Each structure stands twice: as C-alpha cells, then as structure tokens.
C-alpha cells in the first residue's frame, strides 16, 4: 500500500516544482536545488491546507482535500509550456561511479526499511502518529487539544493525516515512506547546493558521507522513522542554504522564501520555533547592518502564521509547554550538561566522525570563514545553546532527558553542519582534486 503515498507525494512534489519553475521561485538556484526544497514546500502547503480548512470550517475528506490539488495540477498542465529541467552534464569517472553505487545502495536500503515495519518509535506513536490518527478520525484539530493536552506543533501530524485521507484509512506502515523522503530530499539539497561549489566527485563524496550517517539512516527508514527530527533537520538545511545564498546575493526574492521555509520549520517541532526565532534575530541584525530597512516588511511573512498558531492554541485551551513549568534556572547542572552534550559529539556509532571533522574545519578556517558561513555558524551555535538552556530549566530528570534526546537534537543540525563543513573545506580539496584528475585525463589520453 505504500505505493499510494509514494506516488501521490512524489506527484504533488513535482507539481510544486513545476509551479516553482513557472513563477521563477528561488532565482539563481539550480533546478535540482529547487526540486530538493519542493518537498518542504509540499509539507508546508499540505499542513497549511488542513489547518486552513479547520479554521474556516471546511470538512476534511479525500475529495475535499484532493480537489484543489487536481485543479492546481490541471491548471498548470493547461497554462504551462513544456518545463525544461536543467541538470549538470557529468562525466562519470571510476570514483564517481563507485560513489553513485554506494549512494544508490544506501538509499534503496533505507527506502526498503522504511516500509518494512509499522511505526515503532515511542515519540512517533505517542505524539505525531497519535495526533494524525485523531485528525483522521475526528476530522478536526480542536478535540486533540483537550485529549492530549499537548501544545506541540502539528505540521507532521497534519501532513500524515492528509495521506490517511488519501488512503481512506489509518495505515501507519505505508505513510512512513513520507519520512524516508525527508532523508532523500535532504541528500538532494546537500548535493545540489554543493554541486554549485564543488566538482562532481567531491559533491558525491559529501552526499554519501551524509546519507550513510547511522543516525540519519535510523530516522530515515529504520526503527526511529516516524519522528519529526529528520524532517526538522531537512527544514533547517533548506533555511540554512537559502540564508547562505541570501547573505551572498542580497536578493529580495530569496528573502521571502527564506521566511516561508522558516515558518514551516516552526510548524514541525518546538525546536523549529526556537530556530525560526533565531533566524529572525540574525536576519534583523543583517538587514539593519546593511541598512536594508525597506526589506524589514518581510518579517510579516513569519509573524502572521507564527502568531496565528499561538492564538489558535490559546483558543484550543492547551497548557503551556511542560518545560516552562519548572522551578527555574538550575546553574549547577551546567557542567553535567556540557559533559553529556560534548560526549555525543564523539559518538561515532551515530555520527561517524562528522562532529570532530566539523569543529576541526571551523578551527582550521579561523579568520578565513566567509561572512555568510559565519552567520550560519552563529545560528547553529545559538541553536545548540537553546538546547543547553532547555536542560538547565527542565522540570524533569535532566540527565535522563539528555540521554534520550541528545542524538535527536543534533540530528536537527547535522545536515547543515555537514553542508557548512563541505563549503569550508572545498577549496582545500580542490587543489589536490584538480591535480589528480589532470593525471587521470592525461593517462586516458
């Protein structure tokens, strides 16, 4: 049955992509990058569609939810000229062939695993999938608030519920393919972003290094699939990529999409709301420094939906998040928190050597770090700091909480960390890369 969510989600992603091409969304970006981010847009649009229906009192159902998509697809078909997708013409060397095979094997393995078992991770069935099931059965959002007493963002649950409506029943095995796509599309964004900066082989190498991270694989298709952390990691990756491009190009059109992606991140998880707030602060600082006061209007794109969600939650009468019901700041925890959080950076089982490599590259780059990268690094640092603060104030056993959540928290940042590492280290590799391939080419001749 996973064929249905697979084909519907891919078809709708393609529709979004064609639409992005049609109205020239993300100017200056490659088609592959646009396609890579279109799954995040699909996620945002579907979540918003269900949320909007709920607000205006339209009932959720297979027909009512799919009809706008059919009209949208049909109108694109009628009005669009033939869409030409531009891709790089690559010369497949021996190394790139091996890397391509490795990537393919990894992706197929994760895809197969994702639909092999029903949802089995605690957070998934106790939160995300439970709410999706409730939305499908109740056909509304509000009953969920009174039953679960949870004020968590509901983007993931609405997204899954949409596919329950498409399927016509609750099927918590086949919808896991949607989480596999967060894995695939993260890889696509990393590949397409880096391909603009690095040669084919190096880009494939970094993409493979990302896709083969054990923690990413577990969330993409094995026992931890169905959780929202990889989805947030993918959202943050898209925001980071656009933020990087915006700082470099200062293109106003990118700014609007950056804000849209940031809003979507806040609709995935609580940590996404914190992240989106941090983006606003840094963006405000950047616009202020650049004296781009006219562009401050863009914050409206973030403020309206974020404030709207908070007002809706108040209307639903949910309690505040349990994190804020504690006794206050416990400074005595800080050494333990730092120790536990640092230890995860060298958890090779989860991350191979991603984090030591990342920190080493940042250290090596020193003052040569480009401006755009320094903004991203600050963003990632502040996000990690926000996790520290949560552990300092949490009312529950903080050591146990660190133990069960830390690998997931780092998963939010891992795709972006790898991307930034590749951006910084690329020039270092390029010299030896060109020397190697010059030899290869001369040998072949």
């Amino acid at each position: 049955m996973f064929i249905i969510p697979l084909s519907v989600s891919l078809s709708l992603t393609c529709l979004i992509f064609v639409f992005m091409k049609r109205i020239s969304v993300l100017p200056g970006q490659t088609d592959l990058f646009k396609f890579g981010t279109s799954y995040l847009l699909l996620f945002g649009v579907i979540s918003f569609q269900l949320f909007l229906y709920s607000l205006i009192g339209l009932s959720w159902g297979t027909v009512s939810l799919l009809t706008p998509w059919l009209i949208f697809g049909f109108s694109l078909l009628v009005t669009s000229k033939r869409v030409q997708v531009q891709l790089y013409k690559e010369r497949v060397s021996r190394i790139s062939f091996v890397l391509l095979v490795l990537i393919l094997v990894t992706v197929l393995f994760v895809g197969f695993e994702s639909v092999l078992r029903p949802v089995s991770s605690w957070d998934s069935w106790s939160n995300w999938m439970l709410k999706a099931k409730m939305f499908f059965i109740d056909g509304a959002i509000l009953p969920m608030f009174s039953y679960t007493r949870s004020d968590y963002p509901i983007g993931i649950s609405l997204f899954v519920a949409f596919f329950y409506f498409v399927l016509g029943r609750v099927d918590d095995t086949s919808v896991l393919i949607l989480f596999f796509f967060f894995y695939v599309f993260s890889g696509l964004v990393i590949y397409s972003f880096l391909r603009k900066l690095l040669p084919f082989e190096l880009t494939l190498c970094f993409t493979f290094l990302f896709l083969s991270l054990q923690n990413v694989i577990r969330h993409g298709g094995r026992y931890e699939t169905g959780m929202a952390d990889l989805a947030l990691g993918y959202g943050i990756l898209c925001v980071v990529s656009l933020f990087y491009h915006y700082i470099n190009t200062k293109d106003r059109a990118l700014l609007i999409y950056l804000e849209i992606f940031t809003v979507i991140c806040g609709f995935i998880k609580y940590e996404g709301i914190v992240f989106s707030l941090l983006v606003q602060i840094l963006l405000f600082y950047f616009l202020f420094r650049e004296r781009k006061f006219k562009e401050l209007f863009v914050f409206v794109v973030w403020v309206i939906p974020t404030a709207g969600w908070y007002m809706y939650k108040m209307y639903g009468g949910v309690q505040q998040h349990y994190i804020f019901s504690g006794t206050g700041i416990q400074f005595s925890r800080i050494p333990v928190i730092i120790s536990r959080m640092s230890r995860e950076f060298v958890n090779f089982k989860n991350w191979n050597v991603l984090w030591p490599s990342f920190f080493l590259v940042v250290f090596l780059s020193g003052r040569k770090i480009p401006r755009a990268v320094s903004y991203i690094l600050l963003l990632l640092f502040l996000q990690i700091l926000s996790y520290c603060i949560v552990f300092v104030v949490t009312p529950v056993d903080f050591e146990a909480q660190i133990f069960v959540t830390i690998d997931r928290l780092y998963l939010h940042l891992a795709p972006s960390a790898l991307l930034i590492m590749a951006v910084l280290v690329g020039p270092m590799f390029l010299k030896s890369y060109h020397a190697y391939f010059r030899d290869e080419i001369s040998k072949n001749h």
Partner: protein
Amino acid sequence: MNNKYTKSKSRLKQLFTGLFLVLIVVWLFLAFTRTLYNFSKLYTEEASWVVLSDTDKRVRIFGDLYRVVSYVSAHTHPHANLLFLSPGGKTYYLSRYYLYPRNITYVRNPTEMRVALAKGTYNYLVVFQTSERGLNEYDSLSWKIDWVPDVTFNNFDNKDAVLKIYNR
C-alpha cells in the same frame, strides 16, 4: 621572534590539516563498511520480517502490549470511556494510540483508581498486571482488586501477566 611564531603557527596548521585528512579517510572507511554491513542486514535481520503478517510484526515490536491493546479493542466499544490501571507509562501511551477513539484515563495504583471511579463515569475499568521489566513501573503484581472481572486474558509471553476488564 615574529618569524618563529609564524613558522610554528603554520606547522600547527599543517598538523591540523593532516589530522582532518586522516578523519576524512576514517570517515569514508566507516561509511563504506557500514553501508556493506547495513546491506548485509537484509539477509541476516530483515528477511525474517518480510514474511511476517502485519499483526505478527506488531507483536514482535511491542510484545505483550500489542496483545493487550488487541484484546481490549476486541472487548470494548470503539467510543467507550476507559479507566486504565496501567503498570507504567508505556502501556498507557501505546494503548492511547492503538485504542483511539476510546477515551482512556490513566491511573497508576488502586488508590488513584478508586478516586477516579468515584469522580468520573467510565464504561470499563481495564487492569493490566505484569512483572515484565520496563513495563512494570508501579509494582503492578502487588495490586489487590476484590471485584470479579467480566473478562480475563492471560495468554502472554510473561507468565505473570494478566489483563482484566470490568464492565461498569
């Protein structure tokens, strides 16, 4: 002096660059071997999953807990109000997921149960007792309930486990 400082700085940089290259080689090696290892799991671990039915997969993942929710699901109305005396959080949360749209209220011991029964209206009282580690947070085997259950089920992997449903 300045020259010496610059030299030692560049040596340090060379050292760290070398270290980074070693890390990348190690990373590639790990990624490659783990890819092969993952792929081998298709034969060693996953082949046994492919042949299982959906129910068998769920039993394999959740063990006795899936038998609990299946049994309660079969013996209660879909929109019933259930008071669940549960041996721990996992039993309650999994039941909440699988048994929805049944409304489940969670109690942790017989005292809480009596208070809840006095205050609220429930269609069923469900009691699950087990000695399984990881599920038995509240020493459920020590609970004494004098009433006679309407339905009892004890065909679990855990020999001490028993599920009782009382109609209200």
